[in-house]
């Protein structure tokens, strides 16, 4: 891939813009900075005027957030790497939508990794539009609800309520959804547990993460089993039993 990626850097602080440009020049020879902007408005002008492949986009800016920029160009196919200093909810939404981001102050290694990832994914993800839709939806809601999951065809977006349970299958996992749907996902269970932690999801067992909203009943004998709404019996390991019961009672309150 010899062609240089046409890159735009957007941040309200000039120092930050300059720093990013310096890193790009020094460490990312495959990127070409075609412009920099200190606001959403400026950035929009550049995107309209020039062909853009990649945007480094600060989330928090005084006049409109980085997300607003995306909403202006729903049809444009450019990649975005978000940059954020500290915004818990935004990060959650970004993670949920499987969009790339880096934190400030910028770690150079992480920066390079993020750029490499854009290269890897390029032309492989025709789902960018759907992804940004999911992102805007997730930003509107706290906590986010549209979960992006990587499947063999690309990204699929699920409502967390649809997920009955997730079962580990070596380094993959199976999503068991309502209406008997089943999806194989090329990520391990732990990554989803991280995303869904504190979200009424419970790791009952090494290879099972269940949605507590879909637990129909709990059977004590037969060695602690949760019966899910789809009728499956999920084992609960001995260590987790008390915690599981505590969470269930907390929910029913």
């Amino acid at each position: 891939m010899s062609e240089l990626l046409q890159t735009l850097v957007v941040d309200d602080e000039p120092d930050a813009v300059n720093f990013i440009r310096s890193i790009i020049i020094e460490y990312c020879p495959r990127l070409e900075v075609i412009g920099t902007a200190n606001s959403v408005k400026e950035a929009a002008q550049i995107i309209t005027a020039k062909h853009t492949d990649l945007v480094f986009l600060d989330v928090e800016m005084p006049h409109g957030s980085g997300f607003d920029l995306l909403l202006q160009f729903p049809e444009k196919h450019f990649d975005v790497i978000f940059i954020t200093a500290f915004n818990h909810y935004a990060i959650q939404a970004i993670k949920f939508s499987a969009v790339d981001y880096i934190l400030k102050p910028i770690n150079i290694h992480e920066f390079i990794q993020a750029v490499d990832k854009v290269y890897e994914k390029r032309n492989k993800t025709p789902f960018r539009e759907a992804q940004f839709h999911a992102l805007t939806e997730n930003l509107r809601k706290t906590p986010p609800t549209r979960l992006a999951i990587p499947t063999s065809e690309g990204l699929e977006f699920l409502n967390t309520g649809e997920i009955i349970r997730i079962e580990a299958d070596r380094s993959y996992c199976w999503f068991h959804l309502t209406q008997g749907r089943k999806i194989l996902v090329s990520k391990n269970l732990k990554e989803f547990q991280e995303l869904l932690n504190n979200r009424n999801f419970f790791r009952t067992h090494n290879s099972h993460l269940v949605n507590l909203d879909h637990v129909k009943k709990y059977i004590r004998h037969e060695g602690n089993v949760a019966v899910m709404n789809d009728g499956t019996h999920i084992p609960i390991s001995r260590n987790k039993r008390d915690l599981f019961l505590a969470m269930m009672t907390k929910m029913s309150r």
Partner: protein
Amino acid sequence: MTNTGAFLFILLLYVLPFQVLQEIAAGGRTLPQTETTREDKGAQLNALISRIRQQMKISGKTDADTLHQMLSVAYHFAKENDLNIPYQLEWLKAEIALQNGNYYLAGATMEKVIKVLETSEDQKEMVRAVNLYTKILFRQGEFSKAISLSQTNMKRAKDLGMTNIFLESMNRLADLYKTAGDTRESKQYYFILLDDAAAEKDTFWMTEALFRLGEITGKADGNLIEARRFFSACLKLAEQVADTNRICWVLNHLAWNLYLQDKKDSALILYRELISLATRFRQKTLVANALGNIGTIYRDKKEFLKAEKFYSKSIEAANEIRSLTNLQWIHLDASDMYKSLGDYEKAYYHYVQYKLCNDSLKKAGFDTGLAEARMKYEVDQQQKELEVLSLKLSQQKWFTYASAALVILIILVGLLLIRQFRLSARRRISEMNRKIAEITQANLRQQMNPHFIFNTLNSIQYYMYQHDKVATNTYLTKFSSLIRKILDNSRHTSIPVADELEALHLYLELEKLRFKDKFTYQIELDQEIDTLQYRIPTMLIQPYVENAICHGLVNKEGPGHVHISFAMETGFISCIIEDNGIGREAAREINRQKSSNHNSLGTRITQSRLDLVNTLYGTSLKVTCTDLKDTTGQPGGTRVEIHIPIMA
């Protein structure tokens, strides 16, 4: 019956109705000739009714047809003469229907009678009517209705001074409960009946109550000794008034009672006595029954010849009076005996006989409508229990009101208590919140030890000065990650183990950079611990790690090592922080020399945090410190063990 008795019986059966019919026929004939007034006709009808009543009293149950005939004649007479049918006639019809086992006709007829009586002033008559009606309802299997009616009627009878009906109603109630299977309630009513009857000096009902109590305690409760006491009392009373019928029955029960208690010889003596007495008073059923029982006693005593003799005697006696009930069980017992003796031919014969009796009994049951009642009873059985219960409540309305008032009172008091509790809870919660906020801030201060912050920044500055861009960047981003983590974590009172681990890693990395590899560290994690699922109090461990580094390792000459391990135990996570530093005693000495107390705050805050966490979650967080010794016995570090209960 004696010959004269039988003669009288037959006479009454055939002659009386004939006379009555003649009389009526005469009355009919005279109608067109002499202008008899309606009053006369009414009087004639009334006379007819009392005649039928007399007839009923004398004849008993056996001549249903005659009574029917008489009844239809009376109705015919009333219709012929265009007379209103008096309620007394309906009453009679109901009684006759009851005798014949036609309970539904009886019930419907009595309802009519009661309706008529409602318009009249005669309260006593009403009580009598209702009394009969409850009896019919009982037979119909309408237990709940019968119970409620009996209860109200009983009270009215008492108010009107109708002692006999009062006692009879009481007896019916007890009987109803017994049949409905509520033996406890039944017993209670029999006891009341016994008391009331004693107060009225009514020996009949006293004996009845004692007798039934004996039956219930013996059969339902299985308390044979108490049952015997009742029967003995009953016997005494019956002997006083020479109620031979009752004496015989009580003896029968007493003997059976003894048999059940395995006092076979005493039972035999009583049965013999009963036989002589019952023969004298012509209680043939009881004679047959006693003979059969003697047979069974001998059978049990393995005196089979005697048993055989008594069985055949009893069968003979029972056959004489066609007592199917007796024949049935005697044949069955005899069959069992022969079977055990291996005489299958005789066993078979008796079994066939038993079956025959059993079938005819069933048929008889159907004929008298008893089976119908029983069937209804079975259908109602489940409902009945509830009905009886709810009935008991509704009968005592004051009780309902009282309990309603009580409930309201309880609710009021409860509401007040809840309000009080909420207020105090709110106060407690706000107090807790204040403390939490305090501690959270302390957390931050604690974690962000100024020494640590500024020394770290100083190190970063040094790398910048050296123009080592990458090292500066790494150091700086690690530091910012730690601050981010701490800010994040300090917003919660509990965090997943994973978050605490991440903060620990960052902290240790930075300290390592700061002290230029003066020490190494290792964090060991039990695979059993689900670091995302299990939560622990926020930033609990870091202060202890800092202590280990800043007091234990920094002052040590040579390489230090801090080892942190997390192990899953039942119900809690055990975290051990172990260093090979100079030990607590030496560290304290150094601090004293420095004459500063900048770090005593650390442990104090941690202790107050432990207390808070324990009160907040009702958990039992526990910290134990141990001074370690090296191989030569010199102080060789410190071990801190924290038991962290798992929080939901």
